[in-house]
């Protein structure tokens, strides 16, 4: 089997931020998830995440479509660094594994609101699924504990 292509085209990410990070946005995401599910159901929330994965992350998806997982890798590194998460990425011939040991988004919300939504991590699971949909890759997300997960990119067989 050929190794996963993680070529970096040396172009900046489509959305690349600098400056400060406003972590309280994660609290608004938590509020939003509970509001949408309570009023419109889980399917509606999934539909919104799917639009984020497909319509917002067009460029990451384009790279995946072309058989290149490098842009998603760059995206992960950029934003997990910016949010000061504790993570590492292991790359083998058959898979790329992002292990998040301390998700700062989850823990920031947990420190502010009485209860983190039980669907908080759906933002990752469903957006990953949408980004990978119709591409040569799958992105499987396993929540391994409160504020920790593994995200695995594999080539579809």
């Amino acid at each position: 089997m050929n190794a996963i292509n993680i070529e970096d085209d040396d172009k900046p990410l489509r959305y690349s931020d600098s400056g400060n990070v406003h972590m309280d946005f994660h609290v608004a995401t938590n509020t939003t998830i509970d509001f949408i599910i309570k009023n419109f159901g889980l399917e509606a929330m999934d539909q919104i995440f799917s639009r984020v994965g497909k319509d917002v992350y067009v460029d990451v998806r384009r790279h995946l479509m072309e058989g290149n997982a490098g842009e998603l890798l760059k995206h992960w590194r950029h934003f997990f660094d910016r949010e000061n998460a504790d993570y590492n990425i292991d790359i083998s011939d058959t898979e790329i594994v992002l292990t998040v040991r301390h998700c700062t988004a989850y823990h920031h919300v947990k420190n502010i609101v009485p209860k983190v939504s039980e669907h908080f991590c759906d933002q990752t699971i469903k957006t990953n699924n949408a980004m990978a949909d119709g591409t040569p890759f799958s992105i499987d997300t396993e929540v391994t504990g409160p504020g920790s997960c593994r995200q695995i990119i594999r080539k579809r067989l």
Partner: protein
Amino acid sequence: MIPSDHFTRFYNEVFKFLESRGEEALTAYWLEISKSQSMLTLDLFRENGMEGMRQYWEHIRIEENCDMDLDLNDDRLELRMNVCPSLSKIQDNDAEPMERYCDHCAGWIGPIMDKLGYHLVYDVVDRQKPQCVMRVFKDKQKALESEKSAQLLMHWSGKLSD
């Protein structure tokens, strides 16, 4: 994780979904955000008045990388957003912008000001430009007077419970 940096693009998708479900859905959502934001603002505003508001938006100016002028006067707090990072990101986005994206600010801030007895005058100026002027008054007459000079005055209909 949807990064904090990308929250507004997620917000934009939420707004488009809710708009497709009707105006009441949008209003109810902004009110829910207002309730959530109350946790971060209500005590500060109640205890410190407009100085507390200045402190909050100064924190926002720094954390959200806003090009913003903030002036606390005897009779009002005035916020001039020169370049709004939130709308700027919506305009620099591969997904379609929600046309009324700017409306959410008054949608969540308005109910908090109402609850505390302040008067919000939110001039969006132009929904296509990432700039606006927000004024908060204690005196209702002064607020009404200020409304007359607004170019695109934003209203809100949500109300926080006591």
